[in-house]
């Protein structure tokens, strides 16, 4: 394009040539060192966890329930609880996130103050500390909504039915926590759909709604899916918001009702590493649990990255 070819002649990109002044080598070396440090830490975390965790993994570990002191057995209830939680969270949160993204990208006027306000709210929501979501979930869903439902539906009952920590309340809390991820990626994905496609649809007589549903959204699907996967990965790993809203240290049964409490991989890691009566005996289980959690989130994130790259390649072509 208009950019003149003024790039300096390509030397080795790894290190500047030996004749370079001290300043050049210093900055280059220091910045390279920083990157290496970050990579090293990443490799160290993954390596140490996997090297101690993978040997403990077995079919029994993944499919059996733990013993009540958490020092034996497997982690199936925690896997089950995590999946149930993220599933509920996705069902509750993703439609709202996508609708908001659609509004911002397709319906909001260009310099709309309302849209600006929504965007600001989304940014701020993304920055709310996860423990504050825990306070909110407890104060709002458990205490207010749950107790309110109890008062309305079961006036005679003395023990709470809805007004106690439950998987539903945790899922709703996490749905709000992950809302920004879905909204931002949906809006971005829709903005990458070329306007010519919308024009063509409108020109053929489609209504605005049809254009959005049948042209814009399908073309943005890979991008939106990326956001959903990222939200699931985030939701699966968060512990602070579920401590008070539904997670259980140990449950003798699998949750089958929205009002049940649940076991959770992340919470299991927290409980095992801080509250275990016998640290040495718990160590292999702990590493194996972390391995499962790490593989789960990395798997989801890698899927998201691959999907995003594909979506970009497609929209760029």
């Amino acid at each position, binding site marked *: 394009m208009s*950019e*003149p070819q*003024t790039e300096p002649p390509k030397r080795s*990109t790894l290190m*500047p040539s030996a004749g370079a002044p001290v*300043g050049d080598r210093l*900055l*280059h070396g220091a*910045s*390279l060192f*920083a*990157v290496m440090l*970050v*990579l090293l*830490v*990443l490799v160290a975390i993954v390596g*140490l*966890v996997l090297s101690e965790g993978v040997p403990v993994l077995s079919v029994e570990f993944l499919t059996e329930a733990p013993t009540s002191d958490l020092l034996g057995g497997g982690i199936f209830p925690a896997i089950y609880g995590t999946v149930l939680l993220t599933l509920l969270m996705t069902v509750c949160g993703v439609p709202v996130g996508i*609708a*908001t993204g659609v*509004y911002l990208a397709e*319906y*909001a*006027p*260009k310099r709309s103050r309302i849209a600006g306000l*929504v965007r600001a*709210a989304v940014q701020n*929501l*993304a*920055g*709310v*500390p996860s*423990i*504050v979501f*825990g*306070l909110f979930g407890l104060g*709002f869903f458990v205490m*207010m909504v749950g107790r309110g439902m109890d008062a309305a539906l079961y006036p005679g009952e003395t023990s709470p039915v809805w007004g106690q920590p439950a998987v539903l309340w945790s899922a709703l809390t996490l749905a709000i926590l992950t809302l920004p991820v879905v*909204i931002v990626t949906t809006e971005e994905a829709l903005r990458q759909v070329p*306007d010519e496609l*919308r*024009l063509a649809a409108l020109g053929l*007589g489609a*209504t*605005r*709604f049809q254009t959005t549903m049948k042209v814009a959204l399908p073309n943005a699907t890979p991008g939106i899916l990326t956001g959903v996967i990222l939200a699931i990965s985030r939701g699966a*790993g968060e*512990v*602070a918001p579920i*401590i008070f809203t539904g997670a259980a240290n140990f449950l003798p049964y699998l949750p089958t009702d929205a009002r049940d409490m649940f076991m959770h991989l992340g*919470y299991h*890691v*927290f409980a095992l590493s801080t509250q275990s009566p016998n640290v040495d005996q718990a160590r292999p289980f702990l590493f194996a649990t*972390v391995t499962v*959690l*790490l593989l789960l*989130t*990395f798997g989801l*994130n890698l899927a998201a*990255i691959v999907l995003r790259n594909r979506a970009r390649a497609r929209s760029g072509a």
Partner: protein
Amino acid sequence: MGEASEVVERISGRASTPARTPLGQGFRTPRSHLVAENAIRVVAFAAILAIVLIFAIIAREALPLFFDAEAQEELGGLDALLFARAWPGYPEARHIWQPVGDVPKFDVVPLLAGTVKVTLLAMLIATPVAFLSAIYVSQYAGKRVRELLKPAIELLASVPSVVLGFFSLVVLASAVQALFGTTYRLNAFVAAIGLSLAIVPLVFTIAEDALRSVPRELVNGALALGARKHQVILRVVLPAAMPGLAAATVLGLGRALGETMIVLMASGNAAVVELFDPTSSARTITATLASELGEVSPGDAHWRVLFLLGTVLFLFTFVLNRAGAVIIERLGKRLRAEAT
């Protein structure tokens, strides 16, 4: 492209002056479509509703501390929150957080001190590493190396904080103790290192974006004038991207303040007023909330003080995030203006 988007704006009625085409006059959009569209508009307010509701709910639980005489009495007077007292059994006035006991002591100063100490330490470790990494990836790395490095560092961001907490607790704490011979295995320094692992990817991503958005013309101009690469980076690229780096710092600070699981698991959690010794234990606001809220009964003084701490945390992070977002927005506008 620009024209096309304008036409879409007009046809679809988004522009302020809708197109007066015959099409638009003779055709009536089915009612179901209008209903669905309006539903989308309503749902879009969910984010605003959520942020308002979060603040309202947690502040509501804390407010009686200020207006309700009974709640204040339970607390031992409002000033018990911030001012040192000669508690029974102690010879002199001290700041003590000891919410459970015969004489509950709700002095939050130790928690504030712990939060400040761990957060600042983490920032001191994280920002240089993140900025230098961003410089390398945006200025030195070739395209292919960059496309490998960026996702790798972002992968670190996807590690759940409970895993980082576990790593700090089990691996880092032992390593730090072996290296520095610290008295307490779990301390502010260990928590700060663990915390920096969570902040580096965030600060890196924003800083790298800012550094790369510096117009190529500025860099090429400086190079053409004979500046060395490091001179260009330090005197042209960094100053131009400075607001972005500031935003990265501010947003990183917000994240560090609010991070819970890492500090809960690695900081030792002793509520002491000690700002300058990194090897002493520290109890942060977030860790206090996570470990104590489960054991208090709703409505008593302890419960309300915890929600007050939550409200303060919310407000601090809210301001930091807003500031970061505004800085980034302005930088984007300025760079776009400069580039054209």
